[in-house]
């Protein structure tokens, strides 16, 4: 994943989850703000930012930052 994409991804996470920074290993389990409503907001924001569309199975699987990166990279 190139630098530009990483920066845009970070921005999406920061603004959606109201975080100051995006730590490695961020996941639904260790982030209070990443609840079901914000999960939906996150998907919508990622799709709008990168012009991609995720499959329902992917949306369910995107429970941590690494998986999000991996699935997003596969579409770009």
């Amino acid at each position, binding site marked *: 994943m190139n630098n530009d994409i990483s920066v845009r991804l970070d921005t999406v996470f920061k603004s959606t989850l109201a975080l100051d920074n995006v730590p490695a290993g961020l996941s639904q389990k260790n982030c209070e703000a990443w609840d079901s409503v914000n999960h*939906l*907001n996150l998907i919508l924001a990622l799709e709008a930012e990168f012009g991609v569309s995720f499959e*329902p199975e992917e949306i369910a699987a995107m429970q941590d930052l690494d998986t999000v990166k991996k699935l997003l990279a596969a579409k770009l």
Partner: protein
Amino acid sequence: MKLFVFRNATLEPFFPRGATEFSGYGDVSRVPENAEKFRWFYTLPPDVSPQEAKTLTTDFLQKLNLVLAQIPAGKTLELTRLALPQSAPIVLSDTRMRSAVAAYNAALEKIARERENTQMLDAPTACVDWRMWFLAQMPFAPAKKSPPNAPVAVPAVRKKCLVLDCDDTLWGGTLGEDGFSGIKIGGDFPGNAFAYFQKKCVGLAESGIILAVCSKNNEGDVREVFEKHPAMVLRREHISAWRVNWCDKAENLREIAAELNIGLDSLVFVDNEPRERERVAAAFGGQVATPEFPAHAYELPAFFEKLADDFFRTEKLTREDAAKTQQYRDAAARTEAAAHFTSLSNYIASLEICLRVAPADAFSLPRLAQLTQKTNQFNLATRRRTEAELRDFLAGGNAVFSLSAADKIGDLGIVGEAEIAFSEDKKSAKIENFLMSCRALGRGIETAFAQKLLCALRERGIETVFAEYLPTAKNAPCKDFLPSFGFVRENTKETRFRLDLQTCGKLEISTAYKFLSHE
């Protein structure tokens, strides 16, 4: 809190986080006093059928009237108009949907004229993203603008019969491998997308289209699904001809046409298997239509619209169509409550809520495990369980119960779960988990469920019941639940409560709820 939104679907992504609070889905039991402003924002589910539209909009208005009585006159109220669903009716002269929406919007406008501080808001113009509807009950997507209104296509010749395959066409999965309780129909995605497709097929049947089933399966298995599976929308009475066997599908279609006394060119064959479609297309030189089936379940709505445009839409019903339609309508007739309610309890009583408490079984376990994973608000202990953990819990001599709910508006399916552990001497029981899906809140169902459970425990000879309320960031709505039954805190700091069933008096269940018994 600045704005409080009454809603019946997922709308959070359309509002800035923080300043807005939302009611539960279809919940009008709470009108917070500290809100500065209120918004009424109900939407028709995108899968609404013409006959449901009136029932639903009537229900919306009854709910709105309950809310109106409680909002202080000085506070601003915004009323959002209802949009027409994007799919055109099968019979274009069918105006039931249009009139239901128009009557609802007219009723809102009347309220806006008569009440001070009331404003009308236009209906949202965004269009549905079916993925987001099936996954998250989001009725439209923020980014998707509605396409300009194109004239609705009517095929030159209307086909007479839709022949349906079963596995991965009417439900997800393979009946022969996944079994009765393993196929995906109803509930969450993708089952809800297949239920949507079935519902649209029922709509076709009601517009005079004959439905037939042609599937490579054991006939008994398929019939059992049509007769007994709780989530099936299509039922035996909708199907006029059956060919469930291991024979060549082209031969089966020939027989179906002969049995129904219609030409092969009147058939549309829907099957997810390209090889079956090719075989049928080749066998009859293209006489039987074999539309391509979508790769993803969330594309079924678009697939159905194309099916309707190409083969089934019509301006008007013929006399025979109408006769057939009437039969279905009689069979499915629902009573319409037109009264206005002034109290929540009267309204709840009018809903004809039916509840069913049943021990967990192979069919309900996956859903129950999922409920423990997903439910946040009404969840006393928030113990997340996997299916395997629930099975282990049951194997230890304990009990897990499901609660299903339905009302005159529709079937909610399984919405509640309770786990009960028994002491060795069988004199006391502990409620390990007790939860209710947010879809079902605001109707008093959780109280009726708990009362029923406590009664059942008492009948079993249980003397003391223990339960816990473990506070989380989200479960404040059930903070006062246990004390409302007479549970007392074990000591002031403890999260553990106890109820003495022998001295707690009568546990009366409101007559507003009808309990269906289970075997």
